[in-house]
């Protein structure tokens, strides 16, 4: 067979094997992490520091983004609705959008960059510097010590951060409506309450839990797969952000299709 035929076939085969290999390793990691939950004595002391790093440290950037998102939402809603629809629908739009979509997704994407890249770089550095091997030598389960506390921290803290971000986004949109749109508080609150359903909050929490698991899980996966020194660490961080963001958007569509 000529080379120009064999080369694309070989490339396609390599890609397929690589993808399936990654999926397999991801499942192995997932199964190992689930199994490592039983080593609470190992991951327990690491949980609070990870909660602080992943959750508390992420609050400022999440609130910053939510603040400006709320402002922009309010202004764009008024720009869209003025003259045709009552202005109290600005409250409807800001509330619904922040709860159902922008709060969880923007926070998830932001934390995919901040938390996911951080985890990937940290674990990748540990991998290339053989600290992970050292843990194994010391009879520490690296999954229990490194992955489980981070994933649990992500699952616990992402909804908290998202709730705070949603609240701040709505409040900033409210403040914008009062200051820039000649709306009154009763008008905005009327719109906010008009189509509100408690399920909207639960929907945001469910999405953010899944986002937290994905961001931390992807970060841990690519971090532990890091090879070839500092270059590999950078590549792992980049891959983590890209893949986590893609999975977040896919999950966003999935939850919208299944839960709404």
């Amino acid at each position, binding site marked *: 067979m000529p080379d120009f035929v064999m080369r694309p076939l070989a490339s396609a085969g390599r890609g397929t094997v690589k993808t399936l290999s990654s999926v397999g390793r991801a499942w192995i990691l997932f199964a190992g992490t689930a199994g490592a939950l039983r080593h609470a004595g190992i991951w327990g002391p690491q949980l609070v520091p990870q909660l602080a790093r992943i959750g508390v440290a992420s609050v400022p950037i999440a609130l910053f983004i939510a603040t400006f998102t709320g402002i922009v939402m309010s202004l764009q809603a008024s720009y869209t609705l003025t003259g045709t629809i009552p202005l109290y629908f600005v409250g409807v739009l800001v509330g619904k959008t922040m709860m159902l979509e922008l709060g969880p997704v923007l926070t998830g994407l932001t934390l995919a960059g901040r938390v996911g890249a951080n985890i990937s770089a940290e674990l990748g550095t540990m991998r290339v510097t053989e600290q992970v091997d050292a843990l194994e030598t010391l009879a520490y389960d690296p999954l229990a010590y490194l992955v489980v506390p981070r994933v649990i921290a992500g699952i616990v803290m992402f909804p908290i951060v998202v709730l705070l971000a949603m609240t701040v986004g709505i409040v900033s949109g409210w403040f914008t409506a009062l200051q820039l749109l000649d709306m009154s508080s009763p008008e905005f609150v009327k719109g906010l309450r008009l189509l*509100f359903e408690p399920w909207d909050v639960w929907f945001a929490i469910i999405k953010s839990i899944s986002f937290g698991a994905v961001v931390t899980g992807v970060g841990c996966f690519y971090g532990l797969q890091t090879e070839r020194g500092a270059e590999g660490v950078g590549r792992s961080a980049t891959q983590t952000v890209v893949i986590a963001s893609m999975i977040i958007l896919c999950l966003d569509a999935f939850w919208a299709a299944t839960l709404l």
Partner: protein
Amino acid sequence: MDRRREIMVGLVVVLGIAVGVVGTIWLQDGWGRDRVSLRAASTSVGQLMEGASVKFRGVAVGRVESVAVVPSGEAVLIDMSVRPDLIIPSDAAVLIAPESMFGDWQAEIIRRGDYDTHPYLEYPGEGVLPAVALPDFSRLTATADEIAQNLTTISERFEVAFTEETAQNLGRAIDNLGEVSDQFSEIIDQQAERFDALAERVDASTQELGAAARAARVSFERVDAIVADGQVQKLFADAGAGVENLRRLTENMDASLTDLQTAARQADATFSRLDALLVALQDEDGSLGRLLADPSLAEGALDAVAQMRDLLLDIQQNPRRYLSFSIF
């Protein structure tokens, strides 16, 4: 350091959970409020949904808790929660209607007497308020669409009926109408002028009538005076005498007519004889006829007349020549 970190994490977690819980309760408009339940039944609820506002006299007093069709399918039950201090009217009913044009509906507690024309559903059960849903906006739209179609049909028929000739006829009719209008205006002007003149005449007549009335009043006053003086009886007596004279005159006239008839008959006989005489003259019969027919006789007669005149003249001048009287 670990202690501080734990506090921070705990603070963020508690804050996040608190924000979620408090925000949800606040947005549900259920923060710290006691509620009492109300139930209403209607044949339809339009687009009323759980969470919709319940209003009384335009003020939000609660929310719709549930909307459910009864198993038999003959009614929809609406459960509402309202403020406990709300005193609803004894004849309360629930009017379900759009709150605005954008899909949000409300249930308003009203006095049934104020909106008694609506077909409320009387559902059996204690405390179940009768309710009625106003037509959905989509129904109004459908009705408007039907009206639009009817208008389209009418328009098409009008286009069919309204040809060029119709337009021309209509134009002529309008022109004629204009002319008629002008003529009518002129007639009105003329009639107005006539009415003015008539009014003036009526005014003058009125004045004359007034004068006549005044004169009549004077006459009546005089008549009254005459009646009062007894002159009427005298007039009646004079009239009776006049009538008697008139009766006599009539009798005389009757007699005269009789005489006149007699004279007429005599004249008639005279004329007959005259006619016979004239016939005789024409026939040259008799002395006079012969006289007329024979000029010599006439001349002889003239001579005789002349001689008679001379004789008479002589007699007058010399009577004694011819007359001699002696008594003895």
